[in-house]
């Protein structure tokens, strides 16, 4: 209440600041601060990337544990003042739901198995990458310079980064090298086998073993796959939710064989004092190629591109491949690999190995009346697990 001609003291006395007004104003202030904080928190995952076009700042990665290369990229990060904030996936399909969700906005770099590239392209979570942006793409083995990594317009949807085998991992200090997948069904192996709990890939591997095309599986073929998998599950000790779990079980002697074993286990188990070897038995195996991709909603595309380029060449790529026990798509890196790592895939004939001995499966069809979709494959795996329990 203002009255003309009154002094400030008189105004105060006429309109005192009492407890009610204090509480009202404090409440409004707190509310404004809270709303501001809430709005800014809702605005994304809080990443503070560098401004567009500038290398540096925070790089948000959503990838496999170990793929964030904390040691290998340390010098590069320091040089360019890049701060990596990494969160880890559990199964290969995790990025598709995460990046589509509001929680995934701001992720700068993630990882894609080749099986998901077609589907994720349709989902719109892969941005285009050119050879101008990542020059080392032009130096890769021809096998990696085409679909599914390359789009029809010549751009790439992702940067092939490492590759290898998803086969049969065994403990060489306890059993002989398995020549066939049938070894898993030996009576003496009952309770000595583990399987990675990735339904879609398990169905694909079983399809390959049975001689079917894993990405054009018919319903009758899926029934055959389910029967085979039910037989397998009855031999299992357990399902493993993570690769780390597979390593632990092999190292502790709980299991001797892992179905859908990753070749990287051969290296990781050494830290636990164990031994493992991943092989391609008669009947074939799955291959994988993990490629780096940048979502269209990335905050720090410039740094993500620079990361792709740096991790694809030279000592960094070699150190990463040595640590992860993986193949490299850049032939210039091969001489820099450890002697043992050079042997895990046949670099003298990469194209033939990929075309004849392993299957790098593409994704399931999203919708099809003729072939099995990803959802149907996942449902089939759940039915297998339930049937064998």
């Amino acid at each position, binding site marked *: 209440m203002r009255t003309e001609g009154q002094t400030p003291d008189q105004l105060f006395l006429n309109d005192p600041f009492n407890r009610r007004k204090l509480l009202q104003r404090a409440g409004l202030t707190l509310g404004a601060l809270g709303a501001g904080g809430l709005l800014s928190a809702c605005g994304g995952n809080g990443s503070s990337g560098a401004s567009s076009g500038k290398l540096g700042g925070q790089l948000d990665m959503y990838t496999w544990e170990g793929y964030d290369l904390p040691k290998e990229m340390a010098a590069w990060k320091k040089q360019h003042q890049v701060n990596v904030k990494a969160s880890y996936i559990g199964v290969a399909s995790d990025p*598709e739901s995460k990046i589509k969700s509001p929680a995934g906005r701001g992720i700068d770099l993630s990882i894609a198995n080749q099986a998901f590239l077609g589907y994720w392209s349709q989902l719109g979570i892969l941005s285009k990458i050119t050879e101008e942006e990542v020059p080392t793409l032009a130096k890769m083995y021809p096998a990696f310079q085409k679909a599914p990594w390359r789009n029809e317009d010549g751009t790439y949807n992702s940067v092939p980064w490492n590759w290898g085998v998803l086969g049969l991992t065994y403990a060489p200090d306890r059993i002989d090298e398995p020549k066939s997948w049938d070894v898993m069904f030996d009576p003496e192996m009952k309770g000595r086998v583990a399987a990675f709990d990735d339904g879609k890939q398990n169905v694909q591997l079983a399809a390959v073993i049975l001689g079917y095309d894993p990405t054009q599986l018919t319903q009758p073929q899926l029934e055959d796959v389910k029967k085979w998998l039910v037989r397998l599950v009855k031999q299992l000790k357990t399902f493993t939710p993570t690769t780390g779990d597979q390593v632990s079980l092999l190292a502790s002697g709980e299991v001797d064989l892992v179905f859908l074993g990753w070749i990287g286990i051969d290296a990781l188990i050494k830290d636990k004092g164990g031994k493992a070897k991943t092989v391609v038995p008669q009947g074939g195996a799955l291959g994988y190629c993990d490629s780096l991709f940048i979502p269209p909603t990335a905050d720090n595309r410039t740094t993500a591109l620079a990361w792709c380029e740096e991790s694809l060449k030279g000592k960094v790529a070699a150190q990463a491949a040595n640590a992860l026990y993986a193949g490299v798509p850049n032939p210039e890196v091969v001489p820099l690999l450890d002697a043992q790592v050079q042997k895990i895939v046949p670099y003298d004939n990469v194209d033939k190995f990929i075309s004849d001995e392993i299957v790098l499966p593409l994704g399931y069809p999203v919708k099809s009346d003729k072939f099995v979709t990803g959802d149907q494959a996942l*449902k089939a795996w759940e039915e297998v697990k339930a049937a064998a329990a």
Partner: protein
Amino acid sequence: MRINRRLGLGLLSPLGLVLLLTIVIPAGTFFVYSFFTFEMLEPQPGFHLHNYTEALSDPLYRKLASHTLAIAAPTTVVTVLLGYTLSYYLAFRAGRGRGLILALVVVSMMASFLARVYAWRTLLGERGVINTALESLGVIHDPLSFLLFSRVAVVIAQVNLFLPFTALVLYASMTTIPHTLHEGARDLGAGGAEAFRRITLPLTGPALLSATAFTFFLSAGDYITPVFLGGPGGVTFGTAISDQLRIAGNYPLGAALSFVMVLAFALVYLLLRAAFKAMRLLPRTAAVGT
């Protein structure tokens, strides 16, 4: 003192706001999702019942429900029996040791859930503590493989995980029983067993119902322990929900499965309540307090 209604509402409003923001709104949103369809990883708004139809009619989910019951039922029975025994001892027999035992019970809950689950792997594995001890004592020649990666392992671990909660709920109820009732029963010639049957058990009936229901819900809803310890036998309804939400990204179906589970829990609670009433373990007044 007459409580001012406005003051009461005002004092409760912060809690109400928290409950609204953390439970009511998220659960309500999730419930709405359960009626959507799912295409290309995008929930499509609408009102469709086919998620519920699938959840209720697909033999897969009925099978998973039976697997879940095969774990939750024995877990509940064993946990409640052990919890009741422990809480009875604490309330009426522990004497000076009560404080220490209570502290141990509370401290046991402070460890990380996942760490405690993993610890059971170390104990139950073929080269774990138990098998190693039994082999070195000559009790067994080969390790007992069923101890780990089996439903037995899940039940053992869940009993360990939920026993403190159950015991504390029951203990809180037992401490409200006046000692004079037991003294009076003794004076009137009742033995220990009769005093227990006619005084302690009925007076702890509501808490026993709560503890039983609570333990069952925790066990049936737990999918972490079956994943890490259950092996092929550890496939439950919860793992199916997790697969739909986390791997398939099918939030509508995952939501429908979740609410079917909530309905099932409500049914279980009603059945338990009816059973407790039939056994005269619940007071006849309306205010059961559960």
